């Protein structure tokens, strides 16, 4: 077995083992909070029942599967957003805020413009979301490139500013003024601003997700821009030596990252809610980091982890329905997965897998582990 093949195998094995291990630990916690020793099999069935419900809830029926796919869509966009940032050496914690402004902007174009045909209006709505997200993310990128202000801090702060801005606008100029509305939300967007259904209940944003994923892969691994971006991410000094405009690439990385998160917001508006509501973006920021890391910052990895996270969140309802335990267990499982992905030494130690090839460069090991495996080089 060549080293490359072995590295790739282990690269795929470790996330799977991390998931299994996290589910096992989660199982112990579920067991401890369920009916215990006095049940048959020491109450183990309770855990089996819980996980069975989780799976059924996510994939058990046509409706369940559609729910999972619908939830997967924003996860893929925001996961890709964080991934693009990582690849360019930028840590984008701001997907939550970028998603919010993206949704606001696209909803605004969606309900104020009413006389355009769908073929123009819908793309306009989506692009506006992209643009708003790109600006919101680009601010952080620009500040980093120009003044050195760390993007982690600025994106955290921008999340709060974005949330407050949304609250301000949704209670103010963007608020649905219909007398029936009592909520901080925009009016519904025009029919021409809505993503048509692919099958009943499932909007065509799913196709868009696939398209965008392929596009991101292509740009990152098949174009000069992408190559430069990754170079900046791996070693900005070397990139600078090689004549790459590091400042521009950093801004670009955050801009594109924000753009993808903004698109997630736009697609939620155009495909699911048909309006922007206060607070619908909460939680995506941290989830998307987990997804990018679990997917080892590869496009295919992000898609697969998005499916997993979507399934966990969707299935949680049925899990709670059957067992009546707190769905916070899902957050615990997600944190455990993330923990063991981030510190893959834990998994290597538990399962006696040899040390990683990239041990020498820990930042790369956590943020860009199987570097370039997708490029085929």
């Amino acid at each position, binding site marked *: 077995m060549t080293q490359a093949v072995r590295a790739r195998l282990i690269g795929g094995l470790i996330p799977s083992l991390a998931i299994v291990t996290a589910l096992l630990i989660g199982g112990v916690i579920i067991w401890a909070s*369920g*009916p215990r020793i*006095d*049940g*048959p099999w020491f109450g183990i069935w309770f855990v089996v029942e819980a996980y069975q419900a989780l799976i059924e*809830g996510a994939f058990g*029926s046509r*409706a369940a599967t559609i*729910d999972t796919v619908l*939830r997967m869509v924003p996860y893929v966009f925001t996961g890709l957003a964080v991934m693009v940032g990582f690849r360019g050496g930028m840590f984008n914690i701001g997907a939550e805020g970028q998603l919010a402004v993206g949704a606001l902007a696209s909803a605004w174009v969606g309900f104020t413009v009413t006389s355009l045909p769908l073929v123009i209006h819908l793309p306009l709505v989506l692009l506006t979301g992209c643009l708003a997200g790109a600006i919101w993310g680009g601010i952080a990128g620009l500040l980093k490139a120009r003044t050195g202000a760390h993007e982690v801090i600025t994106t955290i702060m921008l999340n709060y500013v974005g*949330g*407050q801005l949304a*609250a301000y606008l949704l*209670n103010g100029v963007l608020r649905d003024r219909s*007398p*029936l509305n*009592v*909520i*901080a939300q925009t009016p519904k967007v025009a029919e021409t601003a809505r993503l048509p259904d692919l099958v009943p209940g499932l909007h065509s944003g799913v196709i868009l997700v696939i398209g965008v994923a392929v596009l991101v892969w292509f740009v990152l691994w098949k174009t000069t821009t992408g190559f430069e971006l990754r170079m900046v991410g791996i070693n900005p000094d070397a990139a600078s030596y090689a004549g790459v405009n590091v400042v521009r690439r950093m801004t670009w990385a955050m801009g594109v990252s924000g753009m993808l998160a903004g698109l997630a917001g736009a697609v*939620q508006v155009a495909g*699911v*809610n048909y309006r922007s*509501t*206060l*607070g*619908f973006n*909460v*939680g995506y920021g941290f989830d998307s980091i987990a997804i990018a890391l679990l997917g080892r910052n590869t496009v295919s990895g992000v898609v697969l982890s998005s499916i997993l996270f979507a399934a966990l*969140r*969707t299935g*949680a*309802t*049925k899990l*709670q*329905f059957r067992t*009546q335990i*707190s*769905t916070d267990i899902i957050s615990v499982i997600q944190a455990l997965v993330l923990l063991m992905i981030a510190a893959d030494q834990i998994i290597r130690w538990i399962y006696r897998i040899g040390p990683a090839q990239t041990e020498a460069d820990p930042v790369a090991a956590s943020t860009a582990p199987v570097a370039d495996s997708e490029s085929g080089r």
Partner: protein
Amino acid sequence: MRTRRNLLFGLAALPILAACGGEAAPAAPAAKAEPTKAPAAPAPAAPTTAPAAAAAPTKAPEPTVAAKVLKVGLVTDVGKVDDKSFNESAWNGAKAGAAAIKGESKYVETRDPNDYKKNIQQFVSEKYDVIVTVGFLLGDATIEAAKANPTIKFIGVDQFQEKPVENLAGLIFEEDKAGFMVGVLSALVSKSGKVGAVLATDVVPPVWRFGEGFRAGVKFAKADADLQIVYHSDVGPEKTFDDPEWGKATALSMADKGVDVIFGAGGKTGNGALYGVAERKDKGVLAIGVDTDQYLTVPEAKAVLLSSGMKIIDQGVSDLIKAVSDGKFKGGNVNGKVGLAPFHDLDSKVSAEIKTKLETIRKDLDAGTLKTNVKPAKG
């Protein structure tokens, strides 16, 4: 299989049941007589009194009563079923209602506002007979589900029904009236002539109606009273109800300025205000709670808790569930009870004169001769 959980749930339900069944509000709680007066509905043309032509009682009640165990499902708004607030109150009602008709009950907690539809669907697909959804934000999703599933009965807590659906009852409360009563009480009891309200965000209509009702009540009872109303709108909607520290700091800030009756409303933020008042017990500051009789739910504030502006969700929900079992369930708006909680330990602080006055106001409010003039939501 014996579970600790069932046992504990049962125990927990007992005192609460006793509370809503037993004690009557001091100021004549007979709000029910009134035929669904919409709380100043946006479209006053249709006072929604027509409870759908298809007479509900004839709808084959026999098999329901005899053969089948009714299954009651509850979907919370974002938050937990044990939130010591409206989710918990509704869940207690669902449990009590289900127990009274020997049915079973289960809940699903909403984590993400995008999930309302899905969570309701969970109970639909499991063929539940009654589905309770809690909070006005679930209104649209509930209407949609009710229209799609005419055989299932839906109860929407805090959901005003614009166009009544036959199998959906909107359990609504006139928070402005409860707030008005509380305001009158505060103004009359206050020695300093300064009263205050510590509230969660004004973006959420029930909170806003409590606050504006309070304002109207204070002004009604004592036009020159110094009134301080503070909303926690400087944080997002996901945080505004969960900030007891802020509530406490705000209440203390009011007490510093001589405010001696403080109304706290809005989840844990409001509870924080009660804790804050408890700390100023020696200064004679009094607190007024919200939603349930908080003498029972916030024992730390017992010594200063004068009363609570109640919207009795649990009883409203359980009554509606019983109505389903009896075949008396009707769609449209159902007005839940609102009123003042008993004065408990502080009964002596309220003179007979004030009690009489409150009673009169209560009657006038119910009769419609006295209006709070509060809009359904902040415009």
